């Protein structure tokens, strides 16, 4: 088990190198540069002055040198400084990562609890009204884009009912209640599509297990329905559900951009969105690297979770 974890961790290095080279090449490929944006339109700045400013940020050097220099800093734990704000990328991440993580965890909570319950019930009572209702709800959940759902939620809860503020962010440490009030709507907007996918997966995973022979055996030896479900069905169905949930939640970390924009939340999605628009290269590089690392680590945790959930896998490795 330990060697497995170590091997996976060692694999992080080439993955991150690849991601960073790809990001660097891509972001430099887009036309435009940070300096001309900082000067703005309709100025009297000459091309020579623009070149001088670009030089002062080291942007005139050949790309491989810029990359290697950046890599050298990263190796020492320094993700560099934003061209735009002059703030260290690590400081900014310390501020913004908690926002996105909180949002993701809340969304996961809002999604998994109903998804597991309803998904299991839908499988157990297959072809019942509940099953059909759940199927329709899933269809809506998957088809409804989260930004549209966000607008509807704001319309209902903020403008009509006036229960929750429509936007903004307050740090948890500053005022936990206000923080949660402002996180509910964005988290709900993110959770519906997630819930739909999870519910569908739960239903089919449970159905799959229900058709297994050992379930029939369990029933045949006279176990009542509830204990069949808890002792035999759910533990075996947990594995595929955990896989999907893990990947979905990890993807959510990088998928909050639009919702953060709509609700004016200072998360990493918005940070990298602005950075790409402003061609703030160190920020794009740094955030991509961190998000990629988190993604790899979350999948690793899911893999470890397999072993916890399934004793057979523990001995197999």
């Amino acid at each position, binding site marked *: 088990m330990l060697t497995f974890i170590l091997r996976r961790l060692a694999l992080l290095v080439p993955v991150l190198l690849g991601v960073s080279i790809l990001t660097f090449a891509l972001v430099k490929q887009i036309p435009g540069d940070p300096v*001309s944006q900082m000067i703005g339109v309709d100025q009297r700045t000459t091309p020579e002055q623009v070149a001088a400013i670009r030089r*002062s940020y080291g942007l005139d050097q050949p790309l491989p040198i810029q990359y290697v220099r950046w890599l050298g800093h990263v190796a020492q734990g320094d993700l560099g400084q934003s061209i735009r704000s002059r703030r260290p990328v690590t400081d900014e991440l310390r501020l913004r990562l908690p926002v996105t993580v909180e949002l993701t965890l809340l969304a996961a909570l809002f999604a998994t609890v109903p998804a597991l319950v309803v998904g299991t019930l839908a499988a157990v009572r297959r072809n019942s009204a509940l099953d059909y209702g759940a199927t329709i709800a899933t269809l809506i959940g998957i088809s409804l884009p989260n930004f549209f759902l966000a607008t509807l939620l704001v319309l209902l809860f903020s403008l009509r009912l006036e229960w929750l503020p429509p936007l903004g962010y307050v740090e948890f440490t500053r005022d936990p209640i206000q923080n949660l009030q402002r996180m509910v709507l964005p988290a709900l907007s993110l959770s519906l599509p997630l819930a739909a996918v999870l519910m569908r997966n739960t239903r089919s995973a449970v159905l799959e297990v229900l058709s297994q022979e050992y379930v029939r055996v369990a029933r045949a030896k006279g176990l009542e329905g509830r204990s069949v479900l808890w002792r035999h069905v759910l533990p075996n169905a947990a594995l595929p559900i955990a896989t999907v949930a893990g990947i979905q939640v990890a993807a959510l970390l990088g998928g909050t951009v639009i919702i953060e924009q709509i609700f004016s939340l200072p998360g990493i999605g918005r940070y990298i969105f602005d950075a790409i628009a402003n061609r703030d290269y160190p920020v794009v590089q740094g955030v991509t690297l961190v998000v990629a690392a988190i993604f790899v680590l979350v999948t690793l945790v899911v893999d470890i979770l397999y072993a916890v959930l399934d004793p057979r896998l523990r001995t197999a490795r």
Partner: protein
Amino acid sequence: MGIPSPEKARDLRHFDALLDQVLQGRIGRRQVLARAAALGMSAASLATLSAAAGGPLEAGGLTALPARQDATPKPGGILKVGLQADPSALDPHRQTLTAIWHVIEHVYNRLLTINPDLTVGPELAAAMPEISADGLTYTFTLRQGVMFHPPVSRPLVASDVVASYERWRAPESAAASDLASVDTITAPDDATVVITLKQPDASILPILATSSAIIFAPETIEANGDLSQVAVGTGPFRFVEYVPNTRVVLEKNPEYWEEGLPYLDGLEMTFVSEDTQRTNAIITGEVDFVEYAPLRDIDQMEADDAIALAGDENMNIRFIAFNLTKPPLDNPLVRQAIAAAIDRNTIHVPGTFGHGTPTVGLFPPTFWAALNEEIPGPDVERAKQLMAEAGFADGLKTSITSWSQYSFLSAPALVVQEQLKQIGIDAELNLVETATMIEVVHSADPALRTYEIAVTGTSGHIDPGEVANNFKTGASGNLASYSNPRVDELIDQGMAATDVAERTGIYQEIQRILLQDLPWINLFVANQYEAMRSDVKGYVHVATGTNVALKQTWLDR
């Protein structure tokens, strides 16, 4: 007195409502007249309103009104402000962003300021400068008793102004070109600043009132390296904190030099970039004040008693630009055909939702240097004839480039594309994001400007010379790559002249020549509004888009 007829009663009700808004300085004269006319009010009511709103329409010049204080301002309270964009940093010499300006304008002062009527007035200067007869030496006397905020906490001296301006024009400053005409900046004594110019420059006074002209103390740079994350000035509010993408907190400066100001205890600013959410934020009262009230929601806000609006035409012109290095756009007949084919009255509507004014000249119709020509209607037959004369009777293919981020430009671009189809011009529409737009359309380097036709706009300025400079041969802002020796000459004359009547003549002549040569086809100016809860009092809109009037704003709660 008899009972008024229903019409009369309605008229009176509208009259009262409008007069209230006028007296509170919330809407400008043009809005009043347009709205009153739209409501079908009588000529007598119109005349009264017009007079109340700052004199007859013929007076010329954009006028915002001083706020009339019916009640005595109440000090105290925190105003929650919704800004359109996060500034990301606070240093105006590193980047020239409006978002930065809208935070730091409350913290710093400048030597000069732009008055609501768009004239230039003194701020940290005790009076307007003495200008030498040759127009090259400007001598400023500083206001006495101005204190810097903590931790600097000492009186302002002339060497601070010199240090501030030197940083502004340093080679690595993004705004250095503002001071291109300045030769030396000196401080002969603590209360005097002398600026000498290389050549006369009529735009220098308004430039000294812009966002880059902030006066800070050199100690602040020494302590922090730059001004990215701090702001220590002499303004009505002190900087407390900036949390990126979250909020800016400013508190009242109790030592502020303008007697009795500010009224508010502080400003708490948040950033709301989505238009819909900015409307939601003011409607729900989540904030007390928003800038750039979305034009599509203006009518809704106007109908809402809990919300008051302040606004007028802004100074930014939206236009079609031609890249004159790209055939067939170098052919004047093709440009004339396009000018004849378009319908300005419909182009602006999807961008402004009716809160804009079509224009043929470079300025809003009420600006002093405006060329008030009638808006020509489309003449498709003539346009087709011009296309045939140019040798394109069968039409041509080209492209239109515009901003994907700004619907007030991309939506009009779409209308232009449609209207050009009528004369056989098949234009592909490229909506690109900001960084790309700046490179392929607005680059200072002509080699990088690869666009053919662009639908774009200028950013805020006060002096007509700054816009006119976009047509000077070889100038960085000359996105059309236009060149006309007569226009070059007039631009220089306009910068050298100081008399308003003389300058008006010069800039009107430039605009007439441009209408012949057509490097740009000017389309419209949009209105700009601030929306606030109705208990926010004393605010005055200024057409440059500044929110400095928050220093005299107070809360009636």
